[in-house]
Protein backbone atom coordinates (compact mmCIF):
# COMPACT_ATOMS: atom_id res chain seq x y z
CA UNK A 1 0.00 0.00 0.00
CA UNK A 2 1.57 3.26 -1.04
CA UNK A 3 1.80 6.45 0.98
CA UNK A 4 -1.13 8.15 -0.78
CA UNK A 5 -3.53 5.30 -0.02
CA UNK A 6 -2.32 5.10 3.57
CA UNK A 7 -2.91 8.83 4.00
CA UNK A 8 -6.45 8.51 2.65
CA UNK A 9 -7.18 5.54 4.92
CA UNK A 10 -5.87 7.51 7.90
CA UNK A 11 -8.04 10.47 6.90
CA UNK A 12 -11.13 8.24 6.81
CA UNK A 13 -10.51 7.32 10.44
CA UNK A 14 -9.83 10.94 11.40
CA UNK A 15 -12.85 12.53 9.77
CA UNK A 16 -16.10 10.56 10.04
CA UNK A 17 -19.04 12.72 8.99
CA UNK A 18 -22.41 11.54 10.22
CA UNK A 19 -25.84 11.56 8.73
CA UNK A 20 -28.57 11.05 11.29
CA UNK A 21 -31.76 9.27 10.31
CA UNK A 22 -34.84 8.37 12.30
CA UNK A 23 -36.77 5.31 11.12
CA UNK A 24 -39.69 5.62 13.52
CA UNK A 25 -37.78 5.93 16.76
CA UNK A 26 -39.36 7.23 20.00
CA UNK A 27 -36.80 10.08 19.88
CA UNK A 28 -34.87 8.72 22.88
CA UNK A 29 -31.87 7.59 20.84
CA UNK A 30 -31.98 10.78 18.73
CA UNK A 31 -31.63 12.87 21.87
CA UNK A 32 -28.67 10.77 22.98
CA UNK A 33 -27.00 11.10 19.57
CA UNK A 34 -27.36 14.88 19.72
CA UNK A 35 -26.05 14.78 23.30
CA UNK A 36 -22.90 13.08 21.97
CA UNK A 37 -22.23 16.17 19.84
CA UNK A 38 -22.77 18.68 22.65
CA UNK A 39 -19.92 20.30 24.63
CA UNK A 40 -20.09 17.70 27.40
CA UNK A 41 -19.10 14.80 25.11
CA UNK A 42 -17.58 16.87 22.27
CA UNK A 43 -17.52 14.42 19.37
CA UNK A 44 -15.65 16.98 17.26
CA UNK A 45 -12.43 15.84 18.96
CA UNK A 46 -12.73 12.70 16.84
CA UNK A 47 -13.35 14.83 13.74
CA UNK A 48 -17.05 13.98 13.82
CA UNK A 49 -19.33 16.44 12.07
CA UNK A 50 -23.08 16.10 11.72
CA UNK A 51 -23.81 16.67 8.04
CA UNK A 52 -27.14 17.83 6.72
CA UNK A 53 -26.85 16.18 3.31
CA UNK A 54 -26.40 12.40 2.94
CA UNK A 55 -24.11 13.11 -0.04
CA UNK A 56 -21.49 14.50 2.35
CA UNK A 57 -21.68 11.73 4.94
CA UNK A 58 -19.51 8.69 5.60
CA UNK A 59 -21.44 7.07 8.43
CA UNK A 60 -25.24 6.78 8.58
CA UNK A 61 -26.60 6.65 12.12
CA UNK A 62 -30.06 5.10 12.08
CA UNK A 63 -32.35 4.95 15.09
CA UNK A 64 -35.73 3.29 15.46
CA UNK A 65 -37.38 -0.06 14.74
CA UNK A 66 -37.99 0.64 10.98
CA UNK A 67 -41.65 1.27 10.30
CA UNK A 68 -43.16 0.22 6.97
CA UNK A 69 -43.23 3.81 5.71
CA UNK A 70 -39.54 4.31 6.58
CA UNK A 71 -38.20 1.37 4.55
CA UNK A 72 -38.06 3.14 1.20
CA UNK A 73 -36.58 6.28 2.77
CA UNK A 74 -33.80 4.21 4.39
CA UNK A 75 -32.97 2.49 1.12
CA UNK A 76 -32.95 5.83 -0.72
CA UNK A 77 -30.66 7.50 1.81
CA UNK A 78 -28.35 4.48 1.88
CA UNK A 79 -28.02 4.79 -1.88
CA UNK A 80 -27.40 8.54 -1.68
CA UNK A 81 -24.30 8.16 0.49
CA UNK A 82 -21.20 7.60 -1.61
CA UNK A 83 -18.77 4.90 -0.57
CA UNK A 84 -16.83 3.98 1.42
CA UNK A 85 -19.66 4.15 3.93
CA UNK A 86 -20.72 2.50 7.15
CA UNK A 87 -24.02 2.11 8.95
CA UNK A 88 -24.37 2.41 12.72
CA UNK A 89 -27.63 1.08 14.16
CA UNK A 90 -28.31 3.03 17.32
CA UNK A 91 -30.44 1.54 20.07
CA UNK A 92 -32.05 -1.81 20.71
CA UNK A 93 -34.94 -0.97 18.39
CA UNK A 94 -32.72 -0.80 15.32
CA UNK A 95 -31.02 -4.04 16.33
CA UNK A 96 -34.04 -6.17 17.21
CA UNK A 97 -37.19 -3.94 17.12
CA UNK A 98 -37.07 -4.20 20.95
CA UNK A 99 -40.43 -3.74 22.68
CA UNK A 100 -42.27 -3.28 19.38
CA UNK A 101 -41.54 -6.78 18.13
CA UNK A 102 -44.46 -8.37 16.23
CA UNK A 103 -46.07 -4.97 15.68
CA UNK A 104 -48.00 -4.88 12.40
CA UNK A 105 -46.71 -1.42 11.47
CA UNK A 106 -43.07 -2.55 11.54
CA UNK A 107 -40.90 -4.05 8.86
CA UNK A 108 -37.74 -4.35 10.94
CA UNK A 109 -35.15 -4.86 12.15
CA UNK A 110 -32.74 -2.64 10.24
CA UNK A 111 -30.32 -5.28 9.00
CA UNK A 112 -33.03 -7.01 6.97
CA UNK A 113 -32.95 -4.01 4.60
CA UNK A 114 -29.40 -2.63 4.50
CA UNK A 115 -26.05 -4.00 5.74
CA UNK A 116 -25.28 -2.76 9.25
CA UNK A 117 -21.65 -2.44 10.38
CA UNK A 118 -21.96 -1.55 14.05
CA UNK A 119 -24.79 -2.12 16.52
CA UNK A 120 -24.98 0.13 19.56
CA UNK A 121 -27.43 -1.58 21.95
CA UNK A 122 -29.28 0.20 24.73
CA UNK A 123 -32.66 1.77 25.33
CA UNK A 124 -31.44 4.42 24.84
CA UNK A 125 -27.67 3.90 24.62
CA UNK A 126 -25.46 6.39 26.47
CA UNK A 127 -23.70 9.08 24.37
CA UNK A 128 -20.37 7.44 25.32
CA UNK A 129 -21.36 4.17 23.68
CA UNK A 130 -22.70 5.97 20.60
CA UNK A 131 -19.32 7.67 20.27
CA UNK A 132 -17.59 4.33 20.71
CA UNK A 133 -19.76 2.88 17.95
CA UNK A 134 -18.99 5.78 15.61
CA UNK A 135 -15.27 5.46 16.35
CA UNK A 136 -15.50 1.74 15.59
CA UNK A 137 -17.26 2.42 12.29
CA UNK A 138 -14.60 4.99 11.39
CA UNK A 139 -11.93 2.41 12.18
CA UNK A 140 -13.68 -0.03 9.81
CA UNK A 141 -13.76 2.63 7.08
CA UNK A 142 -10.02 3.13 7.43
CA UNK A 143 -9.31 -0.52 6.61
CA UNK A 144 -8.08 -0.91 3.03
CA UNK A 145 -10.61 -2.39 0.63
CA UNK A 146 -8.89 -5.82 0.33
CA UNK A 147 -9.54 -6.72 3.96
CA UNK A 148 -12.97 -5.14 4.41
CA UNK A 149 -14.66 -6.30 7.62
CA UNK A 150 -17.63 -8.63 7.44
CA UNK A 151 -21.02 -7.03 7.48
CA UNK A 152 -23.13 -7.25 10.60
CA UNK A 153 -20.22 -7.38 13.01
CA UNK A 154 -21.53 -6.72 16.51
CA UNK A 155 -19.99 -4.21 18.84
Amino acid at each position, binding site marked *: MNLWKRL*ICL*SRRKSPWLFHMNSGSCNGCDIELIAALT*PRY*DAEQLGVKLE*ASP*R*HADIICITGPVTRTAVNAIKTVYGQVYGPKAVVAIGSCAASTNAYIDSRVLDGPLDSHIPVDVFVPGCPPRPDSILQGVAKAAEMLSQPAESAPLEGKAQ
Partner: protein
Amino acid sequence: MNLTTALLRLLIFPGLLFAVPAAWFFLWAERKVVAVMQQRIGPPFMQPFFDFMKLIGKDVPSRTGLGGFLVRIWPILSVAAAAGAVGLLPVIPHSGGFAGDLILLLSLLELPSMFIIAAGFSSRSLWGEIGSSREAVMSVSYNVVFLMAVIGIAASQHTFELQALAYSHGSPLRWLGVLAIVVCLPAKLHINPFSITNAEQEIYAGPMTEYAGPDLALWELAHGLEWVASTGLVAALLIPPVTSVWLAAILFVALSFAVVILLSVLAAATARLAIDSSVRFYWQCAVIFAVIGVSSALLMRLKL
Protein backbone atom coordinates in the same frame (compact mmCIF):
# COMPACT_ATOMS: atom_id res chain seq x y z
CA MET B 1 4.76 42.99 -13.00
CA ASN B 2 6.72 40.62 -15.24
CA LEU B 3 6.00 36.93 -15.78
CA THR B 4 8.42 35.66 -13.11
CA THR B 5 7.06 37.80 -10.29
CA ALA B 6 3.50 37.08 -11.41
CA LEU B 7 4.14 33.32 -11.27
CA LEU B 8 6.00 33.63 -7.96
CA ARG B 9 3.10 35.56 -6.48
CA LEU B 10 0.49 33.16 -7.83
CA LEU B 11 2.27 29.91 -6.97
CA ILE B 12 4.46 30.59 -3.93
CA PHE B 13 3.75 33.66 -1.80
CA PRO B 14 1.07 34.78 -1.17
CA GLY B 15 -0.23 32.27 -3.74
CA LEU B 16 -0.91 28.55 -3.59
CA LEU B 17 2.11 27.24 -1.64
CA PHE B 18 1.29 29.62 1.21
CA ALA B 19 -2.44 29.97 0.71
CA VAL B 20 -3.49 26.30 0.78
CA PRO B 21 -1.94 25.51 4.21
CA ALA B 22 -3.15 28.92 5.40
CA ALA B 23 -6.66 28.08 4.19
CA TRP B 24 -6.65 24.83 6.19
CA PHE B 25 -5.20 26.64 9.19
CA PHE B 26 -7.90 29.34 9.07
CA LEU B 27 -10.67 26.75 8.68
CA TRP B 28 -9.26 24.95 11.74
CA ALA B 29 -8.95 28.22 13.67
CA GLU B 30 -12.59 29.05 12.95
CA ARG B 31 -13.82 25.69 14.25
CA LYS B 32 -11.45 25.79 17.21
CA VAL B 33 -12.59 29.27 18.26
CA VAL B 34 -16.22 28.16 18.13
CA ALA B 35 -15.28 25.10 20.23
CA VAL B 36 -13.41 27.18 22.80
CA MET B 37 -16.33 29.60 23.05
CA GLN B 38 -18.58 26.60 23.79
CA GLN B 39 -16.08 25.23 26.36
CA ARG B 40 -15.18 22.25 24.20
CA ILE B 41 -11.76 20.99 23.13
CA GLY B 42 -12.67 21.04 19.46
CA PRO B 43 -11.15 19.50 16.35
CA PRO B 44 -7.49 18.39 16.13
CA PHE B 45 -5.04 20.72 14.38
CA MET B 46 -4.90 18.72 11.14
CA GLN B 47 -8.70 18.34 10.86
CA PRO B 48 -9.35 20.37 7.66
CA PHE B 49 -6.47 18.54 5.97
CA PHE B 50 -7.90 15.14 6.94
CA ASP B 51 -11.36 16.23 5.80
CA PHE B 52 -9.90 17.26 2.44
CA MET B 53 -7.96 14.00 1.99
CA LYS B 54 -10.95 11.89 2.98
CA LEU B 55 -13.20 13.66 0.49
CA ILE B 56 -10.56 13.21 -2.23
CA GLY B 57 -10.60 9.46 -1.49
CA LYS B 58 -14.37 9.05 -1.66
CA ASP B 59 -16.19 7.49 -4.59
CA VAL B 60 -16.79 9.81 -7.51
CA PRO B 61 -20.44 10.27 -8.40
CA SER B 62 -21.05 9.56 -12.07
CA ARG B 63 -22.34 12.64 -13.82
CA THR B 64 -22.79 12.72 -17.55
CA GLY B 65 -23.58 15.24 -20.24
CA LEU B 66 -23.31 19.01 -20.16
CA GLY B 67 -25.05 19.23 -16.77
CA GLY B 68 -22.49 16.90 -15.24
CA PHE B 69 -19.64 18.84 -16.80
CA LEU B 70 -21.00 22.10 -15.36
CA VAL B 71 -21.42 20.59 -11.91
CA ARG B 72 -17.78 19.43 -12.08
CA ILE B 73 -16.35 22.68 -13.40
CA TRP B 74 -17.77 25.16 -10.83
CA PRO B 75 -15.62 24.10 -7.84
CA ILE B 76 -12.49 24.06 -10.03
CA LEU B 77 -13.19 27.58 -11.31
CA SER B 78 -13.94 28.67 -7.77
CA VAL B 79 -10.58 27.44 -6.48
CA ALA B 80 -8.85 29.12 -9.43
CA ALA B 81 -10.57 32.47 -8.82
CA ALA B 82 -9.90 32.43 -5.09
CA ALA B 83 -6.24 31.46 -5.63
CA GLY B 84 -5.88 34.27 -8.16
CA ALA B 85 -7.35 36.73 -5.67
CA VAL B 86 -4.83 35.62 -3.03
CA GLY B 87 -2.00 35.96 -5.54
CA LEU B 88 -2.95 39.58 -6.26
CA LEU B 89 -2.73 40.70 -2.63
CA PRO B 90 0.00 43.33 -2.19
CA VAL B 91 1.91 41.62 0.62
CA ILE B 92 5.55 42.01 -0.35
CA PRO B 93 6.66 45.61 -0.82
CA HIS B 94 7.68 46.62 -4.37
CA SER B 95 6.80 43.23 -5.86
CA GLY B 96 5.02 44.91 -8.73
CA GLY B 97 1.44 45.50 -9.71
CA PHE B 98 -0.45 47.20 -12.47
CA ALA B 99 -2.90 50.03 -12.76
CA GLY B 100 -6.38 48.83 -11.90
CA ASP B 101 -5.44 45.55 -10.21
CA LEU B 102 -7.83 46.46 -7.39
CA ILE B 103 -10.71 46.01 -9.85
CA LEU B 104 -9.38 42.59 -10.88
CA LEU B 105 -9.04 41.61 -7.21
CA LEU B 106 -12.63 42.64 -6.49
CA SER B 107 -13.97 40.67 -9.43
CA LEU B 108 -11.93 37.58 -8.45
CA LEU B 109 -13.27 37.88 -4.89
CA GLU B 110 -16.79 38.02 -6.25
CA LEU B 111 -16.46 35.09 -8.69
CA PRO B 112 -16.69 32.22 -6.13
CA SER B 113 -20.03 33.61 -5.02
CA MET B 114 -21.24 33.63 -8.65
CA PHE B 115 -20.01 30.05 -9.07
CA ILE B 116 -21.87 28.98 -5.92
CA ILE B 117 -25.07 30.42 -7.40
CA ALA B 118 -24.43 28.60 -10.69
CA ALA B 119 -23.52 25.38 -8.87
CA GLY B 120 -26.71 25.30 -6.86
CA PHE B 121 -28.83 25.71 -9.97
CA SER B 122 -26.87 23.25 -12.10
CA SER B 123 -26.98 20.55 -9.40
CA ARG B 124 -30.77 20.55 -9.91
CA SER B 125 -31.46 19.95 -6.26
CA LEU B 126 -34.42 21.78 -4.75
CA TRP B 127 -32.29 22.75 -1.76
CA GLY B 128 -29.47 23.81 -4.04
CA GLU B 129 -31.80 26.13 -5.89
CA ILE B 130 -33.10 27.67 -2.64
CA GLY B 131 -29.51 28.13 -1.44
CA SER B 132 -28.49 29.71 -4.73
CA SER B 133 -31.32 32.20 -4.74
CA ARG B 134 -30.44 33.11 -1.16
CA GLU B 135 -26.81 33.58 -2.16
CA ALA B 136 -27.91 35.84 -5.01
CA VAL B 137 -29.98 38.00 -2.64
CA MET B 138 -27.12 38.17 -0.12
CA SER B 139 -24.64 39.03 -2.85
CA VAL B 140 -26.78 41.97 -3.97
CA SER B 141 -27.19 43.20 -0.40
CA TYR B 142 -23.62 43.08 0.96
CA ASN B 143 -21.90 44.03 -2.27
CA VAL B 144 -23.44 47.49 -2.20
CA VAL B 145 -21.65 48.17 1.06
CA PHE B 146 -18.49 46.25 0.14
CA LEU B 147 -17.95 47.98 -3.19
CA MET B 148 -18.76 51.42 -1.79
CA ALA B 149 -16.24 50.87 1.00
CA VAL B 150 -13.52 49.86 -1.44
CA ILE B 151 -14.36 52.75 -3.78
CA GLY B 152 -14.19 55.12 -0.81
CA ILE B 153 -10.72 53.89 0.13
CA ALA B 154 -9.52 54.02 -3.46
CA ALA B 155 -10.98 57.50 -4.06
CA SER B 156 -9.34 58.87 -0.93
CA GLN B 157 -5.94 57.76 -2.28
CA HIS B 158 -6.59 58.66 -5.95
CA THR B 159 -5.56 55.21 -7.16
CA PHE B 160 -6.89 51.83 -8.23
CA GLU B 161 -3.49 50.19 -7.80
CA LEU B 162 -3.21 47.86 -4.81
CA GLN B 163 0.47 48.43 -4.17
CA ALA B 164 0.04 52.20 -3.99
CA LEU B 165 -3.10 51.78 -1.91
CA ALA B 166 -1.53 49.43 0.62
CA TYR B 167 1.69 51.38 1.08
CA SER B 168 0.36 54.90 1.21
CA HIS B 169 -0.18 56.62 4.54
CA GLY B 170 -3.76 55.98 5.42
CA SER B 171 -6.24 58.70 6.17
CA PRO B 172 -8.95 58.28 8.85
CA LEU B 173 -11.27 57.47 5.97
CA ARG B 174 -9.43 54.21 5.44
CA TRP B 175 -10.47 53.03 8.91
CA LEU B 176 -14.08 53.69 8.07
CA GLY B 177 -13.71 51.76 4.82
CA VAL B 178 -11.95 48.84 6.53
CA LEU B 179 -14.70 48.74 9.14
CA ALA B 180 -17.33 48.55 6.39
CA ILE B 181 -15.37 45.76 4.66
CA VAL B 182 -15.11 43.76 7.91
CA VAL B 183 -18.87 44.12 8.40
CA CYS B 184 -19.37 42.55 4.96
CA LEU B 185 -17.01 39.60 5.50
CA PRO B 186 -19.40 37.33 7.50
CA ALA B 187 -21.86 37.49 4.60
CA LYS B 188 -19.11 36.94 2.05
CA LEU B 189 -17.77 33.91 3.95
CA HIS B 190 -21.21 32.47 4.79
CA ILE B 191 -20.67 32.42 8.54
CA ASN B 192 -23.03 33.40 11.35
CA PRO B 193 -24.97 35.67 11.65
CA PHE B 194 -25.22 35.63 7.85
CA SER B 195 -24.89 31.89 7.19
CA ILE B 196 -28.02 32.13 5.12
CA THR B 197 -26.73 30.58 1.91
CA ASN B 198 -25.55 27.26 3.30
CA ALA B 199 -27.89 27.39 6.36
CA GLU B 200 -26.81 24.02 7.81
CA GLN B 201 -29.75 21.70 8.54
CA GLU B 202 -32.31 24.35 7.61
CA ILE B 203 -32.05 23.84 3.84
CA TYR B 204 -29.78 20.76 4.12
CA ALA B 205 -26.47 22.07 2.76
CA GLY B 206 -27.76 24.76 0.40
CA PRO B 207 -26.00 24.89 -2.97
CA MET B 208 -23.61 22.08 -1.86
CA THR B 209 -26.39 19.56 -1.15
CA GLU B 210 -25.70 17.39 -4.20
CA TYR B 211 -21.91 17.68 -4.10
CA ALA B 212 -19.85 14.75 -2.84
CA GLY B 213 -16.31 13.44 -2.79
CA PRO B 214 -13.55 15.34 -4.65
CA ASP B 215 -15.96 18.07 -5.86
CA LEU B 216 -16.93 18.83 -2.28
CA ALA B 217 -13.24 18.78 -1.29
CA LEU B 218 -12.58 21.49 -3.88
CA TRP B 219 -15.48 23.56 -2.52
CA GLU B 220 -13.99 23.30 0.97
CA LEU B 221 -10.62 24.38 -0.40
CA ALA B 222 -12.20 27.28 -2.29
CA HIS B 223 -13.95 28.35 0.88
CA GLY B 224 -10.64 28.28 2.78
CA LEU B 225 -8.93 30.29 0.02
CA GLU B 226 -11.77 32.81 0.19
CA TRP B 227 -10.99 33.16 3.89
CA VAL B 228 -7.34 33.83 3.08
CA ALA B 229 -8.17 36.29 0.28
CA SER B 230 -10.79 38.33 2.10
CA THR B 231 -9.03 38.51 5.46
CA GLY B 232 -5.83 39.18 3.50
CA LEU B 233 -7.47 42.17 1.81
CA VAL B 234 -8.23 43.66 5.22
CA ALA B 235 -4.70 42.85 6.42
CA ALA B 236 -3.16 44.44 3.32
CA LEU B 237 -5.13 47.65 3.93
CA LEU B 238 -4.16 47.74 7.62
CA ILE B 239 -0.48 46.89 7.25
CA PRO B 240 1.78 49.84 8.12
CA PRO B 241 4.29 50.74 5.37
CA VAL B 242 7.39 48.61 6.04
CA THR B 243 10.34 47.91 3.75
CA SER B 244 11.50 44.52 5.08
CA VAL B 245 9.99 41.60 3.16
CA TRP B 246 9.95 39.27 6.16
CA LEU B 247 8.38 41.82 8.45
CA ALA B 248 5.69 42.54 5.85
CA ALA B 249 4.93 38.83 5.45
CA ILE B 250 4.77 38.25 9.21
CA LEU B 251 2.56 41.29 9.73
CA PHE B 252 0.29 40.13 6.91
CA VAL B 253 -0.17 36.65 8.43
CA ALA B 254 -0.67 38.04 11.94
CA LEU B 255 -3.25 40.60 10.86
CA SER B 256 -5.15 38.06 8.73
CA PHE B 257 -5.20 35.67 11.67
CA ALA B 258 -6.51 38.41 13.95
CA VAL B 259 -9.37 39.08 11.52
CA VAL B 260 -10.12 35.33 11.40
CA ILE B 261 -10.31 35.20 15.21
CA LEU B 262 -12.55 38.28 15.27
CA LEU B 263 -14.96 36.83 12.69
CA SER B 264 -15.02 33.40 14.37
CA VAL B 265 -15.83 34.93 17.76
CA LEU B 266 -18.64 36.86 16.09
CA ALA B 267 -19.86 33.66 14.42
CA ALA B 268 -19.84 31.70 17.68
CA ALA B 269 -21.61 34.46 19.60
CA THR B 270 -24.49 35.00 17.19
CA ALA B 271 -27.30 33.01 15.67
CA ARG B 272 -28.46 32.98 12.07
CA LEU B 273 -30.56 35.95 10.99
CA ALA B 274 -33.50 35.68 8.65
CA ILE B 275 -32.79 36.80 5.12
CA ASP B 276 -34.93 39.95 5.25
CA SER B 277 -33.22 41.04 8.49
CA SER B 278 -29.80 40.62 6.88
CA VAL B 279 -30.74 42.57 3.78
CA ARG B 280 -32.22 45.28 5.97
CA PHE B 281 -29.02 45.35 8.05
CA TYR B 282 -26.85 45.92 4.99
CA TRP B 283 -29.13 48.30 3.14
CA GLN B 284 -30.25 50.37 6.11
CA CYS B 285 -27.45 50.25 8.71
CA ALA B 286 -24.11 49.24 7.21
CA VAL B 287 -24.59 51.29 4.07
CA ILE B 288 -24.41 54.49 6.17
CA PHE B 289 -20.69 53.90 6.91
CA ALA B 290 -20.03 53.23 3.25
CA VAL B 291 -21.92 56.32 2.07
CA ILE B 292 -20.09 58.51 4.60
CA GLY B 293 -16.79 57.00 3.44
CA VAL B 294 -17.41 57.51 -0.28
CA SER B 295 -18.92 60.98 0.04
CA SER B 296 -16.16 62.29 2.30
CA ALA B 297 -13.53 60.82 -0.02
CA LEU B 298 -15.11 62.62 -2.98
CA LEU B 299 -15.51 65.87 -1.01
CA MET B 300 -11.85 65.74 0.00
CA ARG B 301 -10.93 65.40 -3.64
CA LEU B 302 -12.91 68.52 -4.46
CA LYS B 303 -11.01 70.45 -1.80
CA LEU B 304 -7.68 69.22 -3.14
